[in-house]
């Protein structure tokens, strides 16, 4: 094992293990006001009147009229309001906040507020939604010719549903007016500078008049990438009005219904096949944005870039739209658009293979990209594509090919087995030239006279181990023991903006930046002196510039690669599927800490299994999410997948620290296709499955329909 990969005791292990870590809900209650949201009961309406009862002393009602600056939360664009404007656009949209010392009284006041609405017709069906937030199109090759010359043309639709991040710690933020007039906001979040930028505009103040600190954060997975900007602005406005600290922590039902989730999708594929190979793909992707734009543009971009999968498709046309519905605005969740389209393309290839009478993997293998090939956006795969080796490794691990042949034979009896495989990639870092043009990451190292070194960056520890891996990198370059280097939770008053904790970029991009910064410090090191060294992002030379208007160029500098195999047993009497084995092979380059990276692989893999199987969530005809508790939104327990094993295949990335690549999102992306393909094989009889999650009820429907 590489030296750097040797696991160490994580730096935040002790405090968290002993229960001493202070999450935002753990701060003292004294003098802190409780804030609770007044929310819209309708999916779409004009707000006619909000009638507030007389408020006891020390209790406040806060709404748009209390916003000192702009009543919009900047999340890429500015359409998300802090508090509702003239209309409400989804059930649960915050109209105002009631704030005061006693929670019971706050609840009582909320119950007494009368809201009058002028009801409007909501748009709830993605299929006929007509407000297009974003519309992208790109392609290459000659589509007409390819379709004209095709032996056969395949058309199919695939749908994926919501997925909720279900971080164990719900959303929570606290705003505290400070003595010198600044506003201090802290809480459970991933991107301190995002919140900073948003709050500045909302309070109408300068960058030095507000600072944001990340508290110990109980999970994020993307769910705390943008949402905390909204909640942060809301508590800031409330704290400003009340002149006192305000803390708002969501309860679980609130979090499940009203915070950002994975975009449900509807993907249509039209594929031309000639001489047993795919010659063209015409893809139409629709993502359900919910009521406001938030991150939909970027999620959609990534989704459509991945829509032809790991396959070399010379004639490609992709159109993607993010559409408005009057539902909870959707946002970032591990994978960020890719899980939806990778599911679709893998199942499409699988179904074509079925029709051609070839084994699915055999068919897919004919199309796998190689180093040097052109990407979907006419960039290049600059580095080796280890997928073929990774497939062999998985085959060794779980006997995939033999089982696939075995389970292909007709099965009768109550229990039927299947095994599925899927391949995928994840492009680490911001799509396109975002790192270079938008983020422009800066990091610093502060060396103290006593020889300890503090890392100054804005990336947040959310469980993925940055408080350990960042110091590991810096300590190694400086040849220091690990306990001499540390990384605290970022406070915008103290740290530069090294970019958000998203897109699997922290270790690969900022970790490399820190490594270079440490080298710089090493060369400048003076014992006993106080020193500060800075490093700025520089795009690697080999990257082909990406132009968003044309969707051309290198969308990502490099890719992490994944192969998943899932073996299942379907009980045809109940529709329940037992997972016999879940196998993942992941290339994320050199692991900066073996245990930490494995923990990320296993955690992401299990989230993917949930997304594929039990995590059904939908809204009713009024636009209300009904799966609003842990008994209705089912994530895996320790008893659900007892045989989950991951392995690492290492292809070093020269521009990542010690060869590391972005890792966090990869393990979730490819899982649904492997699972659904396995269930499909178990059911046999030529059934073609095209949705995720594929639940017990879905399974039963197929069994009954096909008379299995």
């Amino acid at each position, binding site marked *: 094992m590489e030296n750097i990969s040797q696991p160490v005791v994580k730096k935040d292990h002790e405090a968290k293990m002993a229960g001493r870590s202070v999450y935002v809900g753990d701060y003292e209650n004294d003098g802190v006001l409780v804030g609770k949201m007044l929310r819209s009961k309708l999916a779409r309406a004009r707000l006619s009147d909000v009638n507030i009862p007389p408020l006891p002393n020390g209790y406040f009602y806060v709404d748009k009229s209390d916003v000192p600056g702009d009543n919009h939360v900047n999340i890429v664009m500015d359409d998300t309001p802090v508090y509702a404007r003239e209309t409400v656009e989804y059930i649960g949209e915050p109209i105002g906040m009631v704030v005061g010392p006693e929670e019971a009284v706050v609840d009582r006041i909320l119950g007494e507020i009368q809201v009058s609405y002028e009801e409007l017709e909501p748009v709830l069906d993605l299929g006929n939604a007509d407000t297009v937030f974003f519309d992208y199109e790109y392609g290459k090759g000659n589509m007409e010719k390819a379709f004209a010359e095709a032996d056969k043309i395949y058309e199919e639709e695939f749908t994926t549903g919501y997925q909720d991040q279900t971080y164990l710690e719900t959303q929570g933020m606290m705003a505290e007016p400070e003595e010198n007039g600044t506003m201090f906001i802290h809480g459970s979040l991933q991107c301190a500078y995002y919140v900073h930028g948003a709050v500045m505009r909302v309070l109408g103040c300068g960058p030095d008049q507000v600072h944001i600190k990340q508290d110990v954060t109980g999970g994020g997975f993307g769910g705390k990438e943008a949402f905390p900007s909204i909640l942060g602005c809301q508590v800031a406005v409330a704290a400003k009005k009340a002149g006192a600290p305000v803390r708002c922590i969501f309860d679980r039902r609130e979090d499940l219904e009203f915070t950002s989730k994975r975009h449900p999708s509807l993907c249509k594929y039209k594929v031309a096949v000639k001489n047993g190979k795919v010659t063209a793909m015409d893809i139409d992707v629709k993502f359900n944005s919910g009521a406001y734009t938030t991150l939909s543009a970027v999620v959609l971009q990534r989704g459509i870039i991945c829509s032809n999968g790991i396959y070399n498709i010379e004639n490609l046309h992709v159109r993607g739209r993010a559409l408005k519905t009057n539902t909870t605005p959707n946002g970032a969740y591990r994978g960020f658009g890719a899980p939806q389209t990778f599911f679709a393309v893998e199942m499409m290839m699988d179904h074509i293979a079925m029709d051609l009478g070839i084994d699915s993997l055999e068919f897919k293998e004919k199309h796998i990209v190689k180093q040097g090939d052109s990407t979907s956006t006419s960039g290049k795969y600059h580095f080796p594509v280890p997928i073929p080796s990774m497939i062999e490794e998985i085959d060794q691990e779980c006997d995939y090919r033999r089982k696939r042949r075995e389970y292909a034979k007709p099965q009768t009896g*109550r229990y039927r087995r299947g095994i599925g495989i899927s391949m995928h990639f994840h492009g680490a870092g911001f799509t396109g030239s975002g790192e270079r043009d938008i983020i422009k990451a800066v990091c610093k190292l502060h060396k103290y006279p006593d020889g300890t070194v503090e890392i100054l960056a804005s990336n947040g520890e959310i469980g993925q181990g940055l408080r350990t891996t960042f110091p590991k990198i810096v300590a190694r370059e400086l040849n220091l023991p690990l306990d001499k280097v540390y990384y605290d939770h970022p406070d915008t008053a103290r740290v530069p903006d090294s970019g958000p904790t998203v897109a699997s970029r922290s270790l690969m991009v900022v970790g490399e930046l820190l490594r270079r910064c440490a080298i710089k410090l090493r060369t400048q090191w003076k014992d006993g002196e106080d020193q500060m060294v800075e490093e700025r992002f520089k795009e690697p030379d080999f990257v082909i510039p990406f132009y968003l208007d044309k969707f051309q160029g290198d969308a990502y500098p490099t890719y992490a690669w994944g192969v998943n195999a899932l073996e299942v047993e379907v009980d*045809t*009497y*109940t*529709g*329940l599927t037992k997972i016999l084995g879940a196998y993942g092979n992941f290339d994320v380059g050199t692991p900066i800490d073996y245990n930490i990276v494995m923990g990320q692989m296993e955690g992401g893999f299990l989230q993917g299994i949930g997304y594929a199987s*039990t995590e059904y969530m939908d809204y009713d005809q009024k636009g209300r999410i009904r799966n609003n508790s*842990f*008994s*209705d939104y*089912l994530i*895996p*327990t*320790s*008893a*659900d997948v007892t045989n989950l094993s991951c392995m690492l295949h290492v292809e070093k990335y020269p521009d990542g620290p010690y060869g590391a690549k972005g890792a966090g999102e990869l393990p979730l992306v490819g899982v649904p296709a492997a699972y659904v393909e396995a269930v499909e094989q178990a059911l046999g009889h030529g059934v073609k499955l095209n949705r995720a999650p594929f639940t*017990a*009820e879905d399974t*039963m*429907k197929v*069994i*009954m329909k096909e008379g299995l």
Partner: protein
Amino acid sequence: MVNGYRPASLQEALEIKKTTDAVPYAGGTDLMVENRKGVSYLFLNGLEELRHIREEGDYISIGSCVTFTEALESDLIHPLMKEAVAQIAAPAIRNTGTFGGNIGNGSAKADSVLILFVCGAKIRLASVHGQRTVNMEDFYLGRKKLDLKPEELIVEILLPKRGLDNYYYKKVGGRNALAISRVSFAGLLTVENGRIQQMAAAFGAVSDTVLRFRDLEDRLSGKTLDEASAIKEELLSAYGERLVLTRGRVSAEYRKAVCMNLLKDFLEEKGI
């Protein structure tokens, strides 16, 4: 104690039940989720009189405040009941959840209640006026409606000792733990001298109450296994007509399909 009563004896508890509107609290795992405002609780979890597991003639008497974990650890509780109770929620819930609470919640999803139905168990109720014993099947009147008078407490469950050994049980939830039943089925077959004495089939979580159709079950009484096989299809068809199910977290069609599959599997497993 504000908003609560901790009686020192069952008699005291019954007095409080009569004279106040305190809500009986055994394990609390349903009540605390409900979290009614302004409620007062009558805490029964300390009463030794409600915590026994003992033999009583043809029955095993289980105090209403016996927890599921206690049942799992007792030699007197039949494997069928243990199998059902072992799949309730998760350890922490089983450690506090009780038989009395599971019944008192009035839900057709209650895992222990399904077993009580299929076994023909009885429930003993007590009030300041005395006691009465009711058949489990007669105790559920409808959705969340029990034959429980305002002054009464559930004090004991009487589980028959005999007739449980040849059983079939399946819980269908959404995942392997922390799962509320979407369909549950329990079946019993007693055969003596080559003839069926009694067939019992109960369906849980699929309607307002747990379902049993004694008239359909009786069609098998007195028959040999072969004779029963001969009318199996007709019997299944009759069940198919009687199982008019409600929609819950899953569709009525799904529930029906699963119920019929499990019923058929039960009959066939037992040789019919």
